[in-house]
């Protein structure tokens, strides 16, 4: 219990630091934040309008008071208004609309990458040093060197434009089809982005699994199992894999922060309606509240995934069950 509450505290601390970054970043950079908010329009607005804007955003108050207001708004789930949608749309609305698409892409490709990457990693580890291992390893090295967004820029002209297998851009067709056709339509739009993201996440899963299995396959209990005459498949899958799962998941989660954000560029290339593409559009229109909201949502997602994995640990490793139950 103490372990869990300590972890919970750490997650809370991380979350708190992330929202603080959100607050202090725009106020730390040199220059007047109101000029950032007003953007290119600042010179035309005149002094009075600027002061009015300043008061509207509470920027005339001392920093500590501003921080308090910011935290209070955040606690109410208020992330401010987006600049881009002049009709007055809240950041939370825009995020909620886009998030499911990012979740679809990231969720599917993370699972696909974990499964295929791990399977290849195990295969590689059991054939250490021979042609299969070196072949897979060099494949992964090449894959890791390819910029995923560039791969998208090469696959789109071939598969979407010339061969017309897949639609170009967006996450659904604009008069949305009904029922089953709708699911097929969404799947067709998501296919290429998911392929590319899976290929982007796969090397990490492969490398981590391969390294973990190397260590395990050389331990004494594996030798004992082999000596007992346990069939090879059972040695690898039961004795080896069940011991590798926990360290693999742990290392995979460490890299999550670096990996997950990669969806931003991919969505931008495909013009896919997710948080990433929304952030890309927000960069162009300098929509700071939207950018900060996007960053916050990514952070929360990563923290949530981390918490879920930690809760899975006792199921993966019986040694941890006594400690937490």
């Amino acid at each position: 219990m103490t372990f869990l509450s300590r972890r919970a505290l750490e997650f809370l601390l991380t979350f708190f630091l992330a929202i603080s970054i959100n607050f202090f970043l725009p106020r730390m950079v040199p220059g007047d934040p109101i000029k950032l908010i007003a953007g290119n329009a600042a010179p035309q607005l005149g002094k009075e309008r600027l002061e009015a804007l300043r008061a509207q955003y509470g920027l005339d108050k001392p920093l500590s008071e501003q921080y308090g207001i910011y935290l209070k708004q955040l606690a109410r789930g208020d992330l401010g208004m987006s600049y881009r949608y002049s009709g007055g749309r809240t950041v939370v609305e825009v995020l909620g609309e886009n998030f499911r698409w990012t979740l679809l892409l990231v969720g599917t490709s993370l699972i696909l990458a974990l499964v295929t990457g791990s399977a290849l990693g195990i295969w590689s580890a059991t054939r250490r040093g021979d042609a299969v291992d070196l072949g897979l390893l060099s494949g992964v090295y090449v894959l890791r060197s390819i910029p995923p967004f560039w791969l998208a820029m090469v696959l789109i002209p071939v598969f979407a434009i010339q061969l017309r297998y897949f639609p170009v851009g967006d996450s659904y067709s604009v008069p949305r089809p009904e029922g089953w056709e709708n699911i097929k339509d969404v799947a067709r739009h998501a296919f290429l982005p998911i392929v590319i993201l899976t290929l982007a996440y796969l090397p990490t899963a492969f490398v981590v699994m391969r390294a973990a299995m190397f260590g395990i396959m050389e331990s004494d209990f594996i030798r004992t199992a082999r000596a007992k005459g346990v069939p090879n498949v059972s040695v690898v899958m039961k004795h080896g894999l069940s011991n590798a799962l926990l360290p693999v998941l742990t290392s995979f989660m460490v890299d999550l922060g670096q990996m997950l954000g990669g969806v931003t560029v991919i969505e931008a290339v495909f013009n896919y309606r997710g948080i990433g593409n929304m952030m890309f559009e927000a960069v162009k229109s300098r929509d700071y509240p939207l950018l900060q909201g996007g960053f916050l949502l990514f952070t929360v997602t990563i923290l949530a995934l981390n918490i879920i994995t930690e809760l899975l640990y006792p199921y993966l490793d019986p040694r941890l069950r006594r400690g937490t139950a």
Partner: protein
Amino acid sequence: MTTQIQVDSTPHFRALRERPFPPKRTTLRLARVVGWMGAFVLALMLVFAFFPDVAAPYDATERVALPLQKPSAENILGTNDLGQDLFSELIAGTRASLLTGLIVAVISVLVGTIVGLVSGYLGGWIDSVLMRLTDLILVLPFLPLVILISVYLGPSQRNIILVLAIFFWAGPARLIRARVLSTRTDTYIEAARALGANPLQIMAGHLWSSVRPLALVQVVLVASASILAESSLSFLGLGDPSGKSWGTMLYFARASGAFLSDAWKWWVLPTGLMITLTVLSLGLIGYSLEQRMVRST
């Protein structure tokens, strides 16, 4: 976020880190061959970076023909939306991409090494604070935060270097700390301490020489990661728009719709291949160094 403590206390991880069984001889020979291949490609890229005139037929910032031309005898990869020679641009882009990668790598590994040495050797609250900080940096969504910071700082190559270095020191710091933890109780360190060496001498002298191979590998690997990250950022339009880098080339290729027409074959394809080749060469050098390190320990 997932803690170092857990990773360290799992026996499999200890096995992983120390790798008790040396790689086979054939693997080592192969590692040496691919290492030299990587070094050759990297050397070629360095020549392009510092002496672009060797390969580039034109000045990449000069307008030499009509815009958006197909490949021809004069412009072997055609021209971009401004009428600049794409092949020359490709060569000129080497400098920004490669230098960004190398500068970021040197800065981050330097910071990471110092943090790792201090944290691992001194321990205590300094260690806790520094490790919480690295955990925080590793858990934050890399690209979204980098986008956020870059937007506030404004698009320029210097800011990209700064932002990437803020992130990339954490990984090396963690690895170096782990290595320090496993060597700090070695007899020669204790002997040095018994002889009255101060912590600074031990860290800068003894411990540094034991983590140096690891730090070298990290420079190479961080450089390759930075080149990839730089290309993503420039591609999103966060790089210096007037500077020539592979990422900005792809940005303009996308902006002018090159990948929706036939132009992707001579504009998009070679540019990405240059990135892949450079990143791969660094990866191969890193792999080769890693294998040598495993054998010598």
